C-alpha cells in the first residue's frame, strides 16, 4: 500500500512539474474574420521580456492594426525547439486550424519551414532571421539592427568624450562567428568613432546567447580591468547594465529600454519593433496571397520602416546626443547614407548646433583590409547579413587569441 501511495504521489508531482514546464497552448474559439494567423514560438507566449515576447507583441499589435482580433484570429504553438519533427507537428496543427499565414521566429526552423511551404502551397510561410525562400509562399525577414546600434554608438561616443575616457566595453554573445553580432559590434564602434575618433571598443565574447552569470562577470571585467566607461551589450539579460549601474559607469542595453533596470547609467538601447513587419506581411497576405512574394518578398528593412530604432534617450545622456542621433536617423531614413560605406560621419558642435560632416574615407578592418574604399556606397547586404567576420579598426576582442 505504501509503495502504491508513494508511486501515485511521485507521479502526480512529476505531472505537476511537467505542466508547469510545458504550458503549450493555442488560442481557441470561433472567428468572425476568416483570415487566420499562425505563429510558432521558441519560448512561451506568456514571456514578459526577451525574443519571443518581442515577436508576440509585434504580431498582436500588427493584427490589431489591420483589424484582426488576436484573441480569436491567432493560433500559437509555443515552446517549439529547433527540431524538424516538432516544427513539422506545429505546422500541421496550425494548418489544421486553418491558418493562412504562419510565422516561425527561430533560425533553426529553416529547413522544416521550407519543406512545409512545399507541402502546403496555399499557406504563406514567413521565417525570421533565415535566408531561404521560394517564389510563391515562403519568405524570410530580418532588420538592419546595425543601424540602431550605430545610433546607440553615438550616445556612447558623447559619453566617452565627456568623461575623457576612450575605452568602451561590449559584452557580446558571439564575436566574429556570426555576422549578426559582428556587424552589430562594428556599427556600434563606428557610431562611437563618429563622435570620438579615438574611441576604442573592447569586446568580451561570452560564447553563449544567454548566461546571466557570465554576462555579469564579463561586464565587471570590462570595467575593472579594461577601464571601460560605457558598457554595451548583445546578450539576453540586463546584467551588464545592472553592473554598469552598480559601478557608476554608463551603458547601452539591447532589445528593450533597460533604463528601468539601470536608472542611473542607461543611455539608450537598440530595440526591435516587429509589428512594422508583421503589419506589412499580414496586410499583403489578406489582400492577395498569390502576390505575396512580389509585394513583400524577402524583407530586410531598417530604421526607415520603423522595424529597428533606439529607445528614448534617458536623462543620463550628454546634451548633444539626441540631435546627432536625429541627424544620423534622417540620413539613413532618406537613404542618403548608410553605416558600412566609404563615407564616414563625424559630429561636432554644442547642443543646439550639432552638425554632421560627411568625409570620404576608407572603411578599414582591424587588420588593415579595406572593406569599402573612400567614396564607395554601402557594402552588399549579403556581407552584412552573412559573411562579415572581421572587426573594424578600433575594435579588439579582449578574451581571444585573435584579440
Amino acid at each position, binding site marked *: 500500500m505504501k509503495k502504491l501511495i*508513494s508511486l501515485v*504521489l*511521485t507521479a502526480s508531482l512529476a505531472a505537476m512539474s511537467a505542466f508547469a*514546464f510545458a504550458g503549450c497552448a493555442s488560442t481557441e474559439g470561433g472567428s468572425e474574420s476568416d483570415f487566420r494567423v499562425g505563429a510558432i514560438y521558441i519560448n512561451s507566449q506568456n514571456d514578459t521580456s526577451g525574443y519571443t515576447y518581442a515577436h508576440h507583441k509585434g504580431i498582436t499589435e500588427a493584427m490589431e492594426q489591420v483589424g484582426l482580433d488576436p484573441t480569436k484570429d491567432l493560433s500559437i504553438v509555443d515552446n517549439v525547439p529547433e527540431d524538424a519533427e516538432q516544427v513539422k507537428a506545429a505546422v500541421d496543427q496550425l494548418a489544421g486550424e486553418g491558418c493562412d499565414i504562419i510565422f516561425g521566429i527561430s533560425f533553426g526552423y529553416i529547413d522544416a519551414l521550407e519543406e512545409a511551404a512545399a507541402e502546403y502551397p496555399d499557406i504563406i510561410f514567413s521565417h525570421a532571421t533565415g535566408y531561404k525562400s521560394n517564389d510563391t509562399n515562403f519568405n524570410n525577414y530580418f532588420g538592419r539592427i546595425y543601424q540602431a546600434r550605430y545610433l546607440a554608438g553615438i550616445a556612447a561616443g558623447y559619453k566617452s568624450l565627456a568623461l575623457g575616457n576612450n575605452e568602451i566595453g561590449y559584452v557580446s554573445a558571439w564575436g566574429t562567428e556570426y555576422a549578426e553580432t559582428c556587424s552589430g559590434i562594428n556599427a556600434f564602434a563606428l557610431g562611437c568613432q563618429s563622435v570620438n575618433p579615438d574611441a576604442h571598443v573592447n569586446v568580451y565574447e561570452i560564447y553563449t546567447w544567454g548566461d546571466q552569470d557570465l554576462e555579469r562577470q564579463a561586464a565587471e*571585467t570590462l570595467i*575593472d580591468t579594461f*577601464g571601460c566607461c560605457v558598457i554595451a551589450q548583445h546578450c539576453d539579460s*540586463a546584467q551588464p547594465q545592472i553592473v554598469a549601474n552598480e559601478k557608476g559607469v554608463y551603458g547601452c542595453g539591447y532589445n528593450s529600454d533597460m533604463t528601468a533596470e539601470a536608472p542611473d547609467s542607461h543611455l539608450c538601447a537598440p530595440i526591435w519593433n516587429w509589428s512594422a513587419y508583421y503589419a506589412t506581411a499580414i496586410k499583403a497576405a489578406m489582400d492577395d496571397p498569390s502576390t505575396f512574394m512580389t509585394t513583400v518578398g524577402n524583407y530586410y528593412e531598417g530604421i526607415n520602416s520603423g522595424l529597428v530604432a533606439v529607445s528614448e534617450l534617458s536623462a543620463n545622456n550628454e546634451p548633444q546626443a539626441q540631435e546627432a542621433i536625429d541627424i544620423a536617423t534622417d540620413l539613413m531614413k532618406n537613404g542618403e547614407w548608410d553605416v558600412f560605406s566609404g563615407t564616414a560621419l563625424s559630429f561636432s558642435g554644442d547642443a543646439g548646433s550639432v552638425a554632421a560632416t560627411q568625409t570620404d574615407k576608407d572603411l578599414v578592418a582591424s587588420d588593415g583590409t579595406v572593406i569599402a574604399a573612400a567614396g564607395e556606397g554601402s557594402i552588399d547586404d549579403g556581407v552584412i547579413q552573412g559573411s562579415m567576420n572581421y572587426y573594424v579598426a578600433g575594435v579588439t576582442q579582449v578574451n581571444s*587569441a585573435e584579440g
Partner: protein
Amino acid sequence: MINVITMFLFNIVVYNIALLYGTTGEIMIEKSGSLNLGVEGTMAIGAVCGYIAACRTNSLFVGVLVAFLTAGLTGLVFAFLTVTLQANQNVTGLTITTFGVAFYYFIGNGLSNSKGGWPKLNDTTLADQFRDVEIPLLSKIPILGKGLFSHNILVYLGIAIAVLMWAYFAKTMPGLKLRAIGENPGAADSAGINVTRMKYIHIIIGSGIMGIGGLYMGLNMGGTFEGSNCWINGYGWIAIALVIFANWNPAKALLGTLIFGFFNTLRVYNATIAYNFPNTLGWLNKIPAQFFSALPFIITLLVLIITSISKKNSSNEPASIGRNYYREDR
C-alpha cells in the same frame, strides 16, 4: 586600479560560495543515508521564495528565514516520499529538481506579469544589508585581505555552517548517531536511535541550507528575474559532485568550493590576467574560451575518477546511501 590577484580571489569566493551551501546541505542529507538529487530544485525554490520575502519585508534576515523554511518544506516532501513512503530516492530527487526549477519560473513569470511586477532590489535597502563587511585585522593583509576577508554576511554564514557541521559530525553525540544511521540504519535502530525522526530532521535542515544558497545566488545577480537561465544555473548539480570531492567532510567542502571556484572564475578572468601579466601569463589568452568553460567539469571528472580509484582506503561515503530503510525488511 584594484590589484588583479585580489579581484580574482574576491570573485572566486563571491561567485562560488553558493556551491558551499549546496554541498554542505547535501552532505548533511547524505550522512543520514539519503541521496537527494533535488539540490538544483531545492535551491531554486528557496531562492525565489526567499528573495520575494526579503524584498517585501525589506529584511535580509526574513529572506534567509523564508529561504530556509521553503527549501526545508521541499525537504519535507522528499523525506515523506522516501522515508515514510519508501519511494525511489533517485526518481524523487530528480522530480524535485524538475518541479523546483519549474516552480521558480512559474512564480517569477507570474509575478512579472502581475500588477505589482517583480520586486526590485533597488526599491529596498537589501543591497546595504548585503554589502561587504570587513573582518578587522585579517582584511588588512595585503592582497589576500580584501580578496578573502571582506565579504557579505551570507559568505560568512556559509563558512560558519560548514565549520559547525564538521564539528557536529565529528564531536557531538547526535552527529555520531546520524553517521551510524548513514552507515547501518538497522544497527542504529537496534541501538535505540529513532531512525525515521533523525532522517526527517536532517533532510529538512540540509534542504534548508541549500535554500539559503539559492537566495545568495539571487541577491548576487542583483535580483533580476529577466534572462534566459535560472539563477541556480546548474550549481545544484555541481554541488552533488563536490560532495564526493569533499569526501563527505563539510570542512573539505570549503576547500572543494575554492578549488572548483578557481577554475570557474578563470573562465572569466583569463583575459584580465593575461592583460595584466602579458609576459608571464599572456598565453592564457591563446587558449580557446571553450576550454575554460569545460575546465571546471574536466576537473570534477578527474576528481571523481581519482576518488573512485582510491575508494577502498579512505572514503567516508555512508554505506547505506541511496537505500531506503524499511524496518520490517530486517
